[in-house]
């Protein structure tokens, strides 16, 4: 076990270097002038100034030298201040949002986590329940319906489904809203009346015992939750169903039935736990991708998370911001993948022995 974890930990720096190299390589496609924006807030007015910047920050040096400067920053010889350097938490300055990229992350990431938190439960429980139901009733009506659903579900583009939900539940019925919170809630938050313990709006509302705020947060999150669940159920149904079908054919299930156990016990206690391994893998990668920012869903519902920030920056061709966000999400993904792999090794001994 320790061996496995150490081996897995050693992989992390390699992945991180690889990811930063890919992202930095994309950055290098731009000319030195565009890249000088990484270090300065206001774009200089005359060309001489730009040349000075390029010299100062070594934007015309070799690839690896620049890569190192990008990672570690450049120390200004006059003031002794460090400029740039993602290792020191400086991801550059976003011109479209007129704030440092780090601040965007600080502001937006809790929202993404908030949404992920409330999506996990409906996504997993309904998907797995439906998959088990389908497998147990193989080739009967429930099964056929689940299979048709999983094909339609995987074909439905997220944004089309999201727009349809918006059309029905917001524009027509007016039950739920896009965005993050209503005006009166944002006044509460900015005036400090709502104490922010976690920066996750729904959790903070509960901790403050403000159930009206909680209800408002939910009314804004339900549509993206429905969309994300709907899209993920299709895959969960498929994976659970096929894994469950295979488990139901195992000898120990036959044994359990032969010794006279009730069918419910056989399914719930003998077959289902053993069928969950591939589902756990799926669940892990789904949760990780929820944390990495769901670009399309957040954009459709105007939900101010990391994904929406990336989409906005990309639409405005704000390269510094998107690359900063990419580094951040890449790191989050690598770390949460690590956690998922370690948890998985605890659940399935075959992984750590392999």
């Amino acid at each position: 076990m320790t061996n496995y974890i150490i081996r897995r930990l050693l992989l992390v720096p390699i992945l991180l270097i690889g990811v930063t190299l890919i992202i930095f390589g994309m950055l290098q496609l731009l000319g030195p002038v565009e890249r000088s924006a990484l270090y300065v807030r206001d774009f200089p007015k005359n060309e001489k100034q730009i040349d000075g910047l390029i010299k100062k920050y070594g934007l015309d040096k070799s690839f690896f030298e620049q890569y190192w400067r990008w990672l570690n920053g450049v120390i200004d010889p006059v003031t002794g201040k460090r400029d740039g350097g993602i290792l020191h938490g400086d991801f550059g300055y976003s011109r479209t949002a007129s704030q440092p990229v780090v601040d965007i992350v600080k502001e937006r990431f809790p929202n993404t986590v908030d949404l992920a938190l409330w999506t996990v439960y409906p996504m997993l429980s309904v998907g797995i329940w439906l998959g088990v139901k389908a497998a147990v009733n193989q080739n009967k009506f429930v099964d056929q319906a689940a299979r048709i659903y999983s094909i339609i579900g995987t074909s439905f583009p997220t944004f089309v489904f999201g727009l349809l939900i918006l059309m029905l539940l917001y524009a027509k019925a007016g039950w739920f809203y896009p965005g993050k919170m209503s005006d009166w809630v944002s006044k509460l938050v900015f005036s400090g009346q709502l104490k922010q313990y976690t920066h996750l709006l729904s959790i903070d509302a509960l901790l403050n015992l403000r159930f009206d705020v909680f209800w408002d947060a939910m009314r804004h999150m339900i549509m993206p939750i429905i969309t994300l669940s709907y899209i993920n159920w299709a895959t969960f149904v498929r994976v659970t169903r096929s894994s469950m079908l295979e488990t139901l054919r195992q000898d120990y299930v036959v044994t359990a039935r032969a010794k006279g156990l009730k069918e419910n016990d056989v399914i719930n206690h003998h077959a289902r736990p053993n069928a969950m391994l591939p589902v756990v893998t799926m669940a892990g990668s789904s949760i990780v991708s929820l944390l990495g920012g769901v670009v399309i869903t957040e954009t459709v519902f105007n939900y101010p998370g990391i994904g929406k920030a990336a989409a906005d920056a990309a639409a405005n061709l704000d390269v510094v911001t998107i690359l900063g966000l990419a580094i951040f999400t890449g790191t989050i993904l690598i770390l949460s993948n690590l956690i998922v792999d370690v948890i998985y090794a605890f659940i399935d001994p075959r992984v750590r022995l392999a």
Partner: protein
Amino acid sequence: MTENNTNPTGDNRLLAETHSTRKIGWLERTVGPDNYRILKGLVKTPASIIGMIFIAIFILVAIFAPVIAPPVGNDPYKMPRDGFVGEPKDPGSPWKKNVPEIPFWYKSLTGNEDWVHLLGTAQGQYDIFYGIVWGTRTAFKTGFIVVLATVLIGVVLGSIAAYYGGGVDNLIMRVTDIFMTLPYIMMALIFSAVLTPILGRSLLPPLIAMIAFGWMGYARIIRSDILSIKERDYVLAARASGLKNGRILFKHILPNAIFPTLVLASLGIGDVVLGFAALSFLGIGTEVGYADWGQILSFARNWITSLDKYWYIVVYPGITLTLFVMGWNLVGDAMRDVLDPRMRGKG
């Protein structure tokens, strides 16, 4: 054994059991029994047949686009505009400016004398019907280009990794892992945003971005297929006869390993078109007014509060895109069963 002895006769029971009396068609002869089984799987289940019908309809629409929606102006891929008013117009409203020629099928099918906006207009009076019809061509174009390029990259990298093994294999597969860690849509979005200032707004930035982050799956599949094939006797024979590595790999191993990858890849067109539509929905890619399904859907983003009134901006292109993707998915689903290694040698 002479030629007439190979077919068992009615009175020879033993031979009848050992020899197949099944007729072997030219297709099976050309592609081999394994690949023939895969092709047969395409038309086996009702679901995959429905999928094939969907795909066929879209192919017909793409081919006959100039007849279905006669081009207006020089560039048929530009959706014709009926004026510049911001507000979308309902389906069936009359067409005033830039009216296209009336094709022969129009009067009998719609019962109208003059062109109307069959499926309404989006903001800026872009005709949705034109966008959907010509967008079919855009969809196939992007699908084919991205699939071809990703398969090419994947096959070259995957087969080199599998054939040479050792350090080369390790290096290539770790690079593949790193690319796989990154979220596809986000990276494609970012890369096309970086490319757009360099290449300008066109199909190119999203295409290049989707190719750059889309090859990894194929590299993995072809690698595992080659690993199982490279120990076969005919590879040993080729090596014994002194052939060079490159020739063995590309002339002897690859043709025997590539078929499943090609089938899977061709069904990947649905996913590619979905990704491309997502990128244009987010506002990346072609210039405004280019006939492409994602872009019509992106117009809907500005009318969120009144989507119940302007439902046609979402519903028509949305259904089109969904049916297109579903067609490929239905066939792909049947294919996955056939290509599943546990199913080999059955049916």
